Structures are given as C-alpha cells and as structure tokens.
C-alpha cells in the first residue's frame, strides 16, 4: 500500500489511505525523507485520517519521521488522528508530545502558513 505524497509548494502532504503494515510505514518514512531532501521542503503534513489503529510501532515511526525531518530543518505536522484512535493511544501510553498535531489537513496547512509567515 503506497502512500501518495503530494508536493504543494514548499510543503509535502502524505495522505495515508488505508491501514498500513509495518513495512508500508517504513517505506513511507524513507519516501518522505527522500522527497524532503529532493524538493528542499520546509514542512511535511502526514494525514492519518484513514488509519484504523495507531499502535506503538506506528507512533514510533511517525515520531522518527518527524525527528528525521527536523534534522533537515523542516517541520512535520500529523493531522486527522481520529477521536477513538486518540483514546486508544492514550490508554496504550503513547504520546506524540514532540510532534505537532492538528485537527485536519486544513488546520495543518493553516498552522504551517502562520508559522512560516512569521518567519518570512
């Protein structure tokens, strides 16, 4: 299950469209970091609206993606964590404290535009 990655100006948007296996998540991590380098992107939005479950592996992979992208001087925003998925994550003891999150794609884009407007 390939995750489409859309280039939108200085941002990249990865939209997860179905439940992902561990291998799919690792592939996404590699694809994102390569594109951030190639396009000199300033930010990445990962839309997880379609993710049925965010278990420890998925959360850790998303954290790692955010950390790698930060090392490239870019920002990551996770958008679309479903309420029941958020509930399960908290029960499981997972935190994404180090990663920016937003309600949905629109909010994520608004957050980034605001952030980069202040910089420019």
């Amino acid at each position, binding site marked *: 299950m390939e995750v489409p990655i859309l280039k939108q100006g200085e941002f990249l948007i990865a939209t997860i469209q179905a*439940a992902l296996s561990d291998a799919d998540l690792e592939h996404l991590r590699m694809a994102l970091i390569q594109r951030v380098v190639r396009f000199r992107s300033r930010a990445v939005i990962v839309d997880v609206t379609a993710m049925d*479950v965010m278990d420890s592996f998925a959360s850790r992979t998303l954290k790692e993606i955010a950390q790698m992208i930060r090392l490239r001087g870019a920002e990551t925003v996770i958008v679309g964590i479903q309420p029941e998925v958020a509930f399960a994550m908290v029960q499981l003891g997972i935190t994404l404290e180090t990663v920016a999150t937003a309600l949905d794609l629109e909010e994520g884009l608004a957050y980034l535009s605001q952030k980069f407007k202040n910089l420019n």
Partner: protein
Amino acid sequence: MPDEESRVAINSDQDIVLARQKGRTLAADSGFSSVDATLIATAISELARNIVTYAKRGEITLAGLADGGRRGIMIVASDQGPGIADIRQALRDGFSTSGSFGLGLPGVRRLMDEFEISSAPGQGTKVMVKKWRQERPEK
C-alpha cells in the same frame, strides 16, 4: 464459553493488520461501540506485533463471549517463541528486550478488561485478554 472462534496465523507484519481488522469486525458484530472496537483492534495489533518481533510466528484466536447476559470478546495470542523469563518485568511500562518501545504488554492490559499471561523461557508465550461490552455501570 466462546461461541464463534476464528484463528489468524501470524507470520509477518501483514498478518498484524489482518488480525486487527478481523478483531474489529468481530467486535462490531458483537455490538461493541466504535471506541471499544478501536481499543480491541489496538490491543490485537500490539499482541500480534509481539509475536512477530519475539517469536517470528504464532497465532491469534478471536472469539465472541456470552456469559449470562454479558457479551464480550476474547483474544488469545500464542507462540512457541523464546518465552519471557521475568513476566513481572515485562508488564512494567518502559521495559523491552528488543530495543522497541516495550509498552506493549502493560498497554494491552490497560486497553482490555481482563489479562492473563503464561510464559517461561523456551516454552513460548500465551496471552489471553477479554473485553466486555459496557452495559454494566462504569468501574
């Protein structure tokens, strides 16, 4: 007393997704809310991942439960892997021997209502968890 039972062989990370999707379907069919179905699917994901990570292969059994008026779901994760030497330690948050998170088991225990584990070095591991539908007053 399980009424319907289904087995999912766990041999790869792809099977983790399959097992949790089957679990979610069974939970929904058993009348669980979508929040509970997600908790159950997450627990299955963690249990199946432990199998792949530590034992390479094993099995997840899913069964609907009916106990008097109560309905629930039972998940059994079993493998013939290396087993766990110190179960108490494995149930502590933050403990892991695989360099992973290590919050699998304590997290699963929080997600579910009942949790039993039996394991010994060289004997494999069996984890049984249950969740009951929330018709009774909240604990």
